[in-house]
Structures are given as C-alpha cells and as structure tokens.
C-alpha cells in the first residue's frame, strides 16, 4: 500500500530483522523456530475450537435437522435434509425481512459513515480546546452500554413526556405531543436508526480522525498553494490515503448493522411486531420463542452467508494493512 511516508519509519527496524531471518532460514529451521509458537497458540486454538468452531459446526448441523423442544430434551435432532432451507427460502415473509434488513443496513451505515466523516474532518480543523471537548463527548457516548443508550432514547421519545417530542413540536417540525413513534414502523425504525447511528458514530469518527491526522500537512499545503479547493484536497489527497481505514470501517459497520438485534428487541419491550423483524430478530424468534431451533439455525446460516462477501473484503483489507512486515 502506498500510504503516508512518515509513518513507515517505525516499521523499518522490524522489516529488516524479519527479512534477514527469512533469508537464512530453511524449512527445518523454520519449523524448529515454530515449535514455541505452536505451544503459545495452543490455549487460544483450544478455546476457539471449543467456543467457536464446534458451535459453528452445530449451527450448520442443526440447520439440516428438525430440532424442536422434544429434540432439545432428547439432545438429538432428526435429519431432514434441506427442509429448513426450503421452508425459509420459500417463505415470502423471509424475503421481505431480508429486504428490510438490507435497507435498514444501508441507511444506518450511510448515515454513520457520512456523519462520522464530517465530524472527523471537523476534528482536524478545530482548535485544541474544542477538539478535546468534542473528543470527550464522543468517547463518553462510545463507552455508554447499548442497553443504557436504548433506555435513554426510549425516555427521550416517551409518548407523554419525551423531550424529543416536545422539542420537535416547539421547532414546528410537527405535532408530536402524545405521539407514539412505534405505531408506525417507518417512524419506529427512525428512532432505532437514531440509537444505532448515535452509538456508532464515535468509534468511526475517532478512528477516521486518527487516520486524517496522519496525512502529512505539507502535502495538503502544497496542494492548497497550487490553488486546490478543500473539496479537491479531500478527494485527491486525504481520502485516497485513508481509504484502507475507510473500507475497514465501512465493512465493519455493514456487518454490525446487518445483525442489529437488541435495539429492536429491547426498544419494543421484548415483543416486536412482525413489521419490526430484522433477520437476526427473526432467527431469534424462531429459535427462542417458537422453539424451532433448526429453522432458526437455517436463518442464521443464510444470514452469515449473505454477509460473507463483506466479511471477506474486511478480512483482506485487515490482513493487508497489518502484514507490513
């Protein structure tokens, strides 16, 4: 990656050390050096197999089985082949939910990336005192537990005493006194989006700011002296340099927002109507409300597969930026 030259300095030492090792080492030596590494990795691999690989195997297995309450007690499902998948994929309701989830994800990721980028650009330009203030605010929101955030927003849009209802009414946006936002799914999702985006902005904005502030100032000034506008500078210099971070953050956001669960579940008091179902909510209801674990597993597998492309983009980008040595 052809990125900021200044930051390459600390990597230089490591690079020379490892390349000299690579030159001298034949296969046997490399394996011998690997031995302690494998010993160090053993506990992590053990845990990953136990809590990730094995459950994943089970998830896939159950998705091919009829697995209800009786099977839960007997600890054994009955193999039904592709029945669950046929049922899920043949269900019009499921595709409505998928489309809804995709739209929800697009809106949330778009809003998060847009606002976070603007805030990060502001952070670069503001004075040190205001910058500290804004950073403190962002970090505070970032650390706030999601469940706390949900409770706060529930209170702010309360039917009778919600401060947001009052403010919007005073601003003549409309009459929101005694207004139940969750009566109408579009408005309900607007509130859910506000909670998600509000909670997601700080991480993205602070990380992007870290990227922006590593862009060499001389580069920007040279362009400005040559008559470049702020937009030119962003498009031609800043953005290309932080593009790896941007891709990582965007794909992370897509994956996170595609699996939004608790914001819907807790906001709607543990019983969202079907018009509020997102894929993860649907999988959860099928498994833990209706006790159709096989069906729920099939939905979850489809969800993971739908996200596979984005996951691969993310992993590739992460491996690329981290494999500097």
């Amino acid at each position, binding site marked *: 990656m052809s990125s900021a030259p200044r930051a390459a300095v600390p990597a230089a030492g490591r690079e020379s*050390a490892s390349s000299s090792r690579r030159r001298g080492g034949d296969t046997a030596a*490399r394996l011998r050096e690997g031995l302690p590494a494998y010993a160090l990795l053993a506990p992590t691999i053990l845990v990953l197999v136990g809590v990730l690989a094995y459950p994943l195997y089970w998830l896939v297995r159950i998705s091919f089985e009829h697995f209800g309450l009786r099977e839960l007690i007997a600890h054994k499902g009955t193999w039904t082949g592709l029945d669950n998948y046929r049922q899920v994929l043949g269900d019009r309701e499921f595709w409505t939910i998928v489309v809804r989830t995709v739209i929800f994800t697009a809106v949330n990721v778009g809003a998060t990336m847009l606002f976070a980028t603007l805030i990060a650009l502001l952070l670069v*330009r503001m004075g040190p005192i205001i910058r500290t203030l804004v950073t403190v*605010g962002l970090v505070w929101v970032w650390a706030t537990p999601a469940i706390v955030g949900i409770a706060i927003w529930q209170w702010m849009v*309360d039917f009778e005493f919600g401060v947001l209802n009052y403010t919007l009414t005073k601003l003549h946006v409309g009459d929101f006194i005694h207004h139940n936002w969750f009566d109408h799914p579009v408005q309900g999702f607007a509130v859910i989006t506000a909670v998600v985006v*509000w909670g997601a902005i700080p991480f993205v904005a602070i990380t992007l700011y870290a990227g922006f502030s590593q862009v060499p100032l001389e580069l920007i000034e040279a362009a400005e*002296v040559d008559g470049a506008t702020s937009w030119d500078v962003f498009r031609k210099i800043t953005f290309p340099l932080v593009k790896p971070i941007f891709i990582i953050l965007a794909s992370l956001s897509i994956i996170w927002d595609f699996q939004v669960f608790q914001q819907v579940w807790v906001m709607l008091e*543990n019983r969202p109507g079907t018009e509020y179902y997102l894929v993860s909510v649907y999988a959860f209801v099928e498994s833990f409300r209706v006790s159709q674990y096989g069906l729920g597993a099939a939905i979850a597998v489809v969800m993971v597969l739908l996200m596979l492309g984005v996951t691969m983009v993310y992993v590739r980008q992460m*491996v690329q930026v*981290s494999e500097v040595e």
Partner: protein
Amino acid sequence: MSSVAAYFDLRNRRQRQRVIANALGLVVFAVMIFPVYWMVATAFKPPRDILRFTPKWYPSPATLDNFREAVSRPHFWDTVRNSLVIVTAVVLLSVVIGFLAALAIARFRFYGRRAFIVVIIGVQMIPVTALIIPLYLLLARADQVDRLTGVIVTYLTFVLPFTVWTLRGFVMGIPKELEEAAMVDGCTRMGAFIRILLPLIAPGLVATSIFAFVQAWNEFILAYVLLSSPEKQTLQVWLASFTTLRGTAWGPLMAGATLTSLPVVIFFAIVQRRVAFGLTAGAVRG
C-alpha cells in the same frame, strides 16, 4: 499569484476554517452528549419534574431518591456481583491466553501464521445472534444453562479474538532488538521476556484488559438467553427488564442507567486513545 500572497491567503483560509469548525464542533458536542446529559439530569430530578409536559432542562431541586430506589429494587446487588464475577473471569482468561497467542504471531514465524491471523480477524465477524442458538443448545446439553460459568465461556467467543489482535499490535510496537540485545548480553530468552518485554507491554495489557472489561460488561444478548433466574442475571439484563413494566419508572431507570454506565465510562476514558489508534494504526502506516 505570488507565493507570499498565497501564503497569507492560506493562513486566512485556515483561520476562517477554524472558526467555522469550532462552531460546528460545539453543535456536534451538544447533539452527541445531550442524551447522556438527559439521563443524568433525569436521574437527579424528583418525580414531579420528570413527569412534565414542558421539560425542566436542569435538575433543581436535585434529589438522590431515584438512586436509592434503583439500588433497592430486587436483585440490583445480585446482578452487580454477577457482572463483576463474569467480567473479571473473562478478562483474566482472555488476557492471559490471548497474550501468549499475541506473542506467537508477533514474534515468531511459523507455518500457519497467516491462516491463524485470517481466522482471528474473520471470527470476529460471526454474528453472536447466529452463534447463540448452538451455544444455548450445547450448554443445555452440558447442564450449564443459567450458570455463570456457561456465560463466562461463551463470552470468550468475542473477547478472546479481539484480545489476541489488540495485544499483537502492542507486542509489535516494542522493537525486537531490545530483547535481542538483552540476550546478547547474556539473558536467556525467558529472562529477556520477563525483564524487557513484560514491563514495556504492561500498559498495553492494562489497556486491553479494560477494553475487554467494557465489552464483557456491556454484553446483553448472551446473558439474556443463557441466564434465566433473575438473581443470576447481569446488570445489563437487570436494566433491560426495567423497561418491560407498564408505565416505566423513568427516574429510577435513568438512575440505574447512570450507575450501569459509570464504571465503563471512567475506565474507557483512561485507555480509549491507546486502543482506538492501535486498532487501525497499521492502516495508514501501510
């Protein structure tokens, strides 16, 4: 344009930009922090100031009644204790185990290293909402549902990969040459590790621990599904169950929410800078 004129033009533009950025920065701060402010303000208000159509913007007179009521609700202290037990166990396990793995991928070259890195990054993308179904069934089979140990083990699914990755960044930030120099001077590999690497990595270990603490403390879904008795649940589940009551008691709820977020906000403020930059520090460095 002469270069001197261009320079002054640039300086003017910077100053104009800064004034605008400062003003907009204040707006951003106000919008982002208002929900948090509203939580704290509500927590300190007496009921008659909470249930008002025209909001009272600041808590005056202030009262601690909401906090008293929240704390005296059933199972508050039980859930605080459960959360602390779970979080402590998860942090200790994941930092110790994860540190070993981080050492391996940061300091050794071995077959499968790249594959391991891909796995560590990739598994962080598996949705918990998908994993919870088999996790629940497996724990039910092992008779570990509604037990803290079951939750502790499942929390490792998302805390451990993250810990390995973050610690790897910290280990790589310490030049290998320091250890090599110590070994040239007669230190054993273990000696170099204890005398050189460990003291230098300590801040990284603390930062990662706190970040893992925050993640485990804030987790909701797994605890919600895996713990059914009210006295075994975590603080997050306790807080979420507040809202299911008809006619929510907003004052105590906001007081409870304030108490729930207090420890993480304080801890997080201490280490945020370190970890936030660690995550993508390599990205621009490229």
